[in-house]
């Protein structure tokens, strides 16, 4: 009796959960494209091009030789700002997490700074960093560094004290303890922070490019806005969304793997 019930339960199990998840994702994307198409029908080409026209425009853009230096420029700026935001935020967050008092002092300040519309800082950034790559990098980094810091701070602060006690009982050197206990214990939350940090850093870089530059995707977007070139605006927004979703999914997969263990 019960054996047959077990079989029944086993039979109800779908063939391949990974496949089903992909199907779900594709269905969701299809739904979003449907909404997009509906909006397009409603608002018309003046405001929103159709999914098909957008993809066609994007493919056309990607076929142009001049397009790629812009992508390269944005990626370069993103790379440097991510480096600053991720590594800097991680280091700062870790220090603040280890030293409880400074963490308690700094966290509300960080949160308040985070809530400040950073776009209002742009004039200041320009005055400090001048034009060009450094300003973009700075703008990207200030968008990303605070969330990364806050996540890392909480990750380190929330490490179970008993892990640290274990490290002491094992008589680990501070370096050993850092490498083999602190970092792996805090890693899942750190990766979560990096995901948010990535998205915001990218946004920051784009905003920076919109103000003063002659290269980069942000520059192309602001130009397209100026020219009221809706297909290009849409194609670039799509490209950015695809890029962000891809990176985010990769980090999410890592995130899930790390969280699953703990």
């Amino acid at each position, binding site marked *: 009796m019960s054996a047959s019930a077990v079989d029944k339960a086993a039979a109800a199990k779908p063939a391949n959960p990974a496949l089903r998840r992909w199907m779900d994702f594709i269905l969701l994307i299809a739904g979003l494209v449907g909404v997009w198409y509906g909006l397009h029908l409603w608002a018309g080409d003046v405001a929103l091009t159709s999914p098909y026209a957008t993809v066609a425009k994007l493919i056309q853009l990607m076929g142009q030789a001049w397009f790629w230096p812009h992508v390269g420029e944005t990626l370069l700026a993103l790379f440097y700002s991510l480096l600053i935001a991720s590594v800097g935020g991680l280091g700062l967050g870790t220090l603040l997490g280890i030293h409880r008092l400074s963490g308690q002092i700094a966290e509300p300040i960080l949160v308040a700074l985070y809530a400040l519309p950073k776009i209002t800082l742009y004039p200041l950034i320009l005055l400090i960093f001048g034009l060009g790559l450094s300003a973009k990098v700075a703008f990207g980094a200030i968008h990303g560094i605070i969330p990364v810091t806050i996540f890392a701070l909480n990750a380190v602060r929330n490490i179970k004290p008993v892990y640290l006690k274990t490290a002491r009982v094992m008589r680990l050197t501070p370096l050993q303890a850092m490498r083999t206990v602190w970092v792996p214990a805090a890693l899942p939350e750190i990766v979560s922070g990096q995901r948010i940090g990535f998205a915001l850093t990218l*946004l920051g870089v784009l905003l920076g490019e919109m103000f003063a530059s002659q290269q980069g995707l942000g520059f192309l977007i602001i130009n397209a806005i100026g020219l009221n070139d809706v297909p290009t605006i849409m194609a670039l927004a799509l490209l950015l969304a695809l890029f962000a979703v891809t990176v985010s999914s990769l980090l999410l997969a890592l995130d899930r793997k790390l969280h699953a263990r703990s």
Partner: protein
Amino acid sequence: MSRVGWIRLAIVLGAVGLLELLCQTGVIKTMTMIPPSRMAVELWKMAESGKLGAPVAKTLSNVLAAFVLSVALGFIAGLLIHSLPRFRRALDPLLASYYAVPFFVFYPVLIVIFGMSDLPIIIIGFLFGVVAMIINTLNGLDRIPPVLLKVGRMNRMGSLQTALLIKLPSAAPYLFTGVKLAVAYSFIGVIASEFILSGAGIGYDIAYAYNNFDNRTMYALMLFILTTVTAVNMALYIWEQRMLKRRMGGR
């Protein structure tokens, strides 16, 4: 105030003092930045002359609208998404990458949908805030100990009663994180839209002062935003600490 609070205050005052010193001694030029004391004086003058009233009212009411929408709809959307685990799993990669897309490029679409009014700007603020609220609502609902929901069933409670009397209070600490972020993003969304898309409001006035090299107005307004955001944050922080203290027993 606690010891930590005093140290924090001292650090902030120290930073402001240092800035003041650097500006007063000319290490930072007036063309670059005016001293904090001047910012405060300028802000006071603007407030007295009544120049501040209209843009502040406009921006703050837009922020408030965006915030209320984000929190309310974010919570409801969170409840719905949480009850659809497959949908949620598919949605996950989109939620986190969402912030990388610059929304204001869709401003024309929003004009089409919502007309020429404050609404498109409120919607941009809302779009920024709502996702943070959804993410944290999901987080909070995930962390409700299942046993509390069982207590609800034992007391034969309906789903609305359960949502209000068990899910909401139980997830409250996480919802609070969402609320704090929604405040931040409502400010960021509304003011950034005003800054980029022009029109009216504090963000626009900052952009305008910037374009006209009017550093006094620009910094006065930036000071205003900074203090407002900090004050709102501090109020939320204190409220949150009070709740957490009760719940965590000061641990």
